[in-house]
């Protein structure tokens, strides 16, 4: 089971891990990835727009695909929306499995698909008052496509 969460609020890594692992004693590996707002040359904020009727459902579909591919993996994915400042966490992937290989692989898979198949759009705000929509990267599609090659 991999759960998906869409929220404006920040998240707490320790609390998320405790909630995921719970009373399971068969888990030997926990992998987490946190994406942060990077303060590129004068960036003052990043606003994440999303498609309310579709985004969470799409995140849940990505989570279900990963769970089917790695049946022994437990996980949580969290994606934030709204206006975030440099250093703030944006996205979180947490996976746990009996051995580390599946947890690492499932975490990478989840991130690659979140980046390319979840309807979010980033708008950058700069110190001079200008704004710019982030362009999608071909390298993100390439990373996603390696799972279906």
């Amino acid at each position: 089971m991999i759960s998906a969460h869409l929220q404006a609020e920040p998240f707490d890594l320790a609390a998320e891990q405790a909630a995921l692992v719970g009373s399971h004693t068969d888990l030997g590996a926990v992998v987490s990835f946190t994406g942060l707002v990077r303060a590129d040359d004068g960036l003052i904020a990043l606003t994440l727009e999303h498609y309310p009727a579709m985004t969470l459902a799409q995140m849940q579909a990505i989570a279900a695909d990963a769970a089917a591919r790695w049946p022994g993996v437990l996980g949580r994915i969290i994606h934030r929306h709204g206006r975030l400042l440099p250093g703030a966490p944006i996205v979180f992937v947490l996976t746990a499995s009996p051995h580390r290989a599946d947890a690492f692989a499932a975490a990478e898979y989840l991130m690659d698909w979140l980046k390319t198949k979840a309807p979010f759009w980033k708008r950058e705000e700069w110190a001079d008052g200008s704004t710019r929509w982030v362009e999608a990267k071909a390298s993100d599609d390439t990373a996603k496509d390696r799972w279906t090659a």
Partner: protein
Amino acid sequence: MITLLYFAWVREQIGTDAETLALPAGITTVANLLDWLASQSPGHAAALADRSRIRVAVDQTFARGETPITGAAEIAIFPPVTGG
């Protein structure tokens, strides 16, 4: 009637986040819809000028140019996604 939703710079260039329209007869696929929509205003034309930068979801499912839209309730038009 069909509801069209716009996101990110597609929304900004068209100038609204949603509109409800009656489609003319003969508009049966996503590609037909984009062609017709581009003729509706200069903003629509600008937003849809480069189709390689446009993605579409029909009733919350990613679609392609040939995807049928007959009977659809909601079509969203947006740039390639940039989350994560």
